[in-house]
C-alpha cells in the first residue's frame, strides 16, 4: 500500500546515532525533518469501545492500543511487543480480532471495538473467561486478555467457515484441538499455558482434549 517507500525513506533518513568504524564505514546521521513549530496537530477521533462512545483529541501517531490504555483507561489490553508479534493486544473490531498495536486510533473512527473489559456482562464472566479460570489457562496473566479476545474472534471465524492452514479447504472447519492450536498461534504465552488454554477453549465448545500419557 505504500507509495514507493524507498523514496520517502531516503528523503528523511534520520539515524538515531552515528556508529563509527563499524564495518569500516561511517553511518552519517542526517538531520530530522523539520517538524511544525506547534508540534503534531491533534486529530479528533470518536471511538466506540465496549458500547460507549468517546471523543478524543489524539496525536495521529497514537495506536489504538495506546488510545485504549492511556487515554481511555482500558489497560486490560496489553502491550507485549507493539509490533503484532505476540497477540497480547488483541481486541475485536467490528467483531473481528485484530492487533490493536498495529492500528492507528484515528483510523478506527466509527468502528465498534470490544476489549477484555467489555466481555463480561453485568458482572457475569464470558464463558471463555470462566473456562480460563477453571483450566488455569494462564500463569502471569499478561497475555490472557489477548488470548481470550483472540479466542472469541477465532471461534467466530470457525463459525463463519474461515479456513486455516491445518484444515481441509473444501470442508467446514471444526473447533478441534489441532485447529485451535494453529488458529491461536498469533497469541504467544511465554508462561506456556498453551495446553490449558486449548482445554479451556475446547470446553466452551463442549469438547475435551486428549492426554499425553
Amino acid at each position, binding site marked *: 500500500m505504500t507509495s514507493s517507500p524507498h523514496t520517502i525513506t531516503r528523503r528523511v533518513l*534520520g539515524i*538515531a546515532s552515528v556508529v563509527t568504524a563499524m564495518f569500516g564505514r561511517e553511518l552519517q546521521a542526517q*538531520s530530522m525533518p523539520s517538524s511544525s513549530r506547534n508540534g503534531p496537530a491533534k486529530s479528533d477521533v470518536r471511538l466506540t469501545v465496549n458500547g460507549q462512545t468517546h471523543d478524543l483529541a489524539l496525536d495521529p501517531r497514537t495506536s489504538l492500543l495506546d488510545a485504549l490504555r492511556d487515554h481511555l483507561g482500558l489497560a486490560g489490553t496489553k502491550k507485549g511487543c507493539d509490533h503484532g508479534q505476540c497477540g497480547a493486544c488483541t481486541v475485536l473490531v467490528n467483531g473481528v480480532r485484530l492487533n490493536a498495536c498495529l492500528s492507528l486510533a484515528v483510523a478506527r473512527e466509527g468502528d465498534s471495538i470490544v476489549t477484555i473489559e467489555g466481555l463480561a456482562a453485568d458482572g457475569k*464472566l464470558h464463558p471463555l473467561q470462566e473456562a480460563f479460570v477453571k483450566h*488455569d489457562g494462564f500463569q502471569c496473566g*499478561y497475555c490472557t486478555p489477548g488470548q481470550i479476545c483472540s479466542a472469541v474472534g477465532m471461534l467466530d471465524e470457525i463459525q463463519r467457515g474461515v479456513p486455516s492452514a491445518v484444515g481441509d479447504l473444501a470442508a467446514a472447519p471444526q473447533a478441534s484441538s489441532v485447529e485451535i492450536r*494453529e488458529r491461536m498461534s498469533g497469541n504467544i504465552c511465554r508462561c506456556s499455558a*498453551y*495446553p490449558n488454554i486449548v482445554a479451556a477453549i475446547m470446553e466452551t465448545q463442549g469438547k475435551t482434549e486428549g492426554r499425553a500419557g
Partner: protein
Amino acid sequence: MAQVIGQAIDRIDGRAKVTGAAAYAADNRAERMAFGSIVTATIACGHVTSIDANAARRMPGVLLVMTHGNAPKQAPFQAKADDRHARPKPQLASDKVEYFGQPVALVVAETAETARAAASAIVVTYEKAEGAFVLESASGAAYNPGKGPTGAPSDSKLGDFDKAFADASVKIDAIYKTPYQAHAMMEPHASLASWQDGKLTVTSSLQLVESAHKSIADTLKLEPDKVEVISEYVGGGFGGKLPVFGDAILAALAARELNRPVRVALTRQQMFHVTTHRPASIQRVRLGAERDGTLSAIAHQSLAQSARADEFAEPIVFSTRSLYAAPNRMTSQRIAALDLPVADSMRAPGEAIGLLAVEQAMDELAVRLDMDPLELRLRNEPKEDPEKKVPFSTRALVPCLQEGARRFGWDKRQARPGQVRDGNWLLGMGVAAAIRGNFLREAEARVTMESERHAVVEMDMTDIGTGSYTVFAQIAAELLDLPVENIKVKLGHSSYPDTPGSGGSFGASSCGAALHDACTKLKAKLAKGEGAQGLSVTGSVKPGDDYKRYSQYAYGAHFAEVGIEQTTGEVRLRRMLGVFAAGRILNPKTAHSQLIGGMIWGLGSALHEDAVLDPRLGAFVTQDLVHYHVPVHADVPQVEAVLLDEFDAHANVLGSKGVGELGICGAGAAVANAVYNACGARVRDYPITLDKVLPALTRRQG
C-alpha cells in the same frame, strides 16, 4: 481443620486476570504523568563522545533530556555484594559504554509519542574500542569464578577420573553448545515513579521487591523509609526481573527532576540488550562405563559467557554432582568475560542448559552400550549423594522414570533410529532425568485478623504467575480454619514484611513456611483468648542446616515423542510427559501449570530459542519475537505433567519444594534424544533446527 493446602483450587487472582482488572506496572497512570523513552548505545564498547539533543529538545512537549552530562549523581556500582540484585544500579553515570544497548540518554515528554520520536532524534557519537564478543575465542581468558551463590565451589573432584575414564570399557566424550537465550516474558519492563513530600514510590515489574527496594534507595542515596516499591502483578519474570534496570532508576530520577510522575517502559526490542539473558555455554561431558552400563567415571566441564560489566557464573555443573552414581568424577565451571550485555539467571540457571548436555550424553552412552536409556539411568541410581556423601532428603528419580515409562508407553520405543513412520514423518521417543536444587531462604510474613472470620496476609513477595496469591491463601485458610475466600493476600509492597521474593523456586516454600509460623503463632494467641479483631502476628523462617546434612533436590523424568519430516528435516513435538516429585504440592493446579510451562521452555530450548550474536557488532541481531522464536500454540500438542506424592520433612515445615524451574530441567534433552531416536541425527549444538537434521536425513536416504 479442613484440608486446603494441596487442593487444586482455582487461582484467587484468576478473575482479575481474565477480566483485565489486574494492573501490571505500565497499566498504572498518575495525574500529570509524563512519559520517558530510553536511548541505547549502538556500540558495544567504548565511549560516548558527544550527544546532540538539540532537535529533540526543540520538539514541543519535550520536558527533559537526561544524559551522563546532566544525570544526578548516584551511588557507584558494586561488583560484589551478598545480594547481587540489591546493588546500586546507577544510570547514565559516565560516558563509558560497556555493552550494546546500554542506556545512554533518557527523554521525557508530555506524550509517549513525542518521547519516542525525540529519543530517535538524539544523535550520539561514539569512540569505539575493541571488544571481545566470541565465547569460542575466549577460552584462553576463561577463569574460575570461585564459589557459587549457594557456596558450592566451581570445581569438584572425587576418586581418579582420568584413570577411570582411560580404563572404561565404553566411553562418551562429547562437546555440547547452548546458545544465548532471552527470557522474553510477555510483559516488558516498565516503571512508574512519583515523589510526594520527599518520598519516592516506584511501581515496577519485579520479582524481588526487597532487593529492588534496597537497590533503588541506595542508587538514589535515599533512606529506606523514603522509598516504596510496588509490584502487585508481574507479567512473567523467569529471572529477567530479578535485577532493577534503567526503567526504574531513570523514571525515579526524572520524576524528581520534573516534580511529576514519570513512566518509563522498555520496548520489546530494547529488552534484548538492556536487560539480562542466559549466557551461551560450551560444555564437555565425558562418561566412562562398564559393559553392563555401570558408570565408573563422570566429568562435566563448562564454559559460559559473563559480561565484563557485571560478572555472572552460570552454575552449569552443580547438579551433575548429585545426579548419578560413579566413584570417579570431576566437574569444573569456567566463565569468560565478554563485552556483551549482562548475563544473569534465567529459569533454572545451570540445570536448564547443563542437563541439555549431560542427559544427551547419557543417551549417547546408552546407544553405545546398546542399552535402553531408561535402564541405564536406573542402573546408576546412587544410594546417597555421590559427592557430598550425605543422604538425600528425598529422591524419587526411579519412581518418576518408572511411572513415566508406564504411562507414556515407553515399551513401544524402537531402539534403533528410523524404524517408526507416520506418513512422511519419522517418529522417535526420548527420555531424560530432571533434577533441580531446592532452597529455603529467610522470610517473614504477617497475618492480621480483620474480623473474627477474615484474615489478611501481607508479604513483599511477588506473584509472577507462580500462584503465590493462591497458595498463601490456602496455607492461611487451612491453619486458621477459615474459608479461602475469607483470606485476603496482599503482596508486592516493600512496606510489607521482607521475603526473598520470586526466584530460584524458593518463593512458595520460604514464604509459605514464614506464613505457617505466623498463622501458628496467631492461632496460639487466639487460643489464649486474645480478641481476634485487629490481632496481627509476624512469623518468620530461617534456613537451618538441613541443606548441609541432606542432599536436597526435586526430581522428575521427561518423555518426549517427536516427528521429523523426512524431506525437510522439520522437527515437531508430538507429545510430552513429565513425572515429578517435588515434596508436598501446595496446589496441584498451579504446580501443574508451572511444570508444563517449564517443559515447554525445555522444548523451546531444544528446538527454537537462539539469540543470535553478531560478533562484529557485539549485539544480538534477534531483537524481537519475529526473530527470537519461542514455542507458539501450534508447537505444543499434548503436554502433560504428573506429580507423585511426596513430603520432604527436611525441606521446610510444609514439606514442599519448588516447582517453577523443575519442569525445564532435562526436558530439552528428552526432545533431543527423541530426535536421535527418530532419525539418527545427534545434534549437540542447540537449538536443533532443521538445517542440523538434514545431513542425517540425506545420509539415510543415500
